[in-house]
């Protein structure tokens, strides 16, 4: 479930897929607008792969590997942000 990676100066590649649609608004100025939609209850949770710190190690994990269990996914504004 957790794939360890070594600590280094290079950071893990960010996995991007069809989840985010970038819309070209203006060809010559190349302005891109990202469309962000709220997800819906009763619908599949968007899958993702993410680097993480876990039990003293740096690992990579994938949400789909947690199927068969309940998952509590908690986003928060940042480490050391008081509450």
């Amino acid at each position: 479930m957790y794939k360890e990676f070594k600590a280094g100066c290079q950071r893990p590649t960010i996995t991007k897929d069809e989840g985010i649609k970038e819309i070209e608004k203006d060809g010559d100025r190349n302005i891109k607008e990202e469309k962000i939609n709220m997800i819906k209850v009763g619908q599949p949770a968007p899958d993702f792969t993410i680097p993480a710190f876990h039990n003293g190690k740096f690992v990579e994990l994938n949400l789909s590997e947690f199927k068969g269990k309940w998952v509590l996914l908690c986003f928060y504004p940042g480490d050391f942000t008081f509450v």
Partner: protein
Amino acid sequence: MSAVADRYKELQNLDVEVISISVDSVYVHKMWNDNELSKMVDGDIPFPMGSDQDGTIGKKYGIYDGDSGVETRGRFIIDPDGIVQGFEVLTPSVGRNVNETVRQIKAFQLVRESEGTEVTPSGWNPGKKTLKPNPDLVGNVWKQWSISEARDE
């Protein structure tokens, strides 16, 4: 996040895995764990602390705040089939209530185990009355359930 870590054993007993996510790097997660959180909870943070540095995942879940470059307090409950059953999103200054999260997980689990034949009314907690929707219950909830159940702890 320490409040969630504090309830981790209880969550594990409910077959729940926790993943926390912010835009901080895994190195900062380590520092936060080692220098602050580990002083608030018994041991280290027991669940993976994910690093979503450019907000890719936060955008998928609709909780990335591009103006500040951070993720808002979005909390999602995902069932064993990978379906989102519930979420709550707060602006950064107000923390969540883990009691309410645990209550909701228990309610979703009860409904799932009953295969949808039982539902949990407002303010339900384990041990409190559930309802079994059927044609005879239409218009008769007042005979089986009192508003005081929603009020009481």
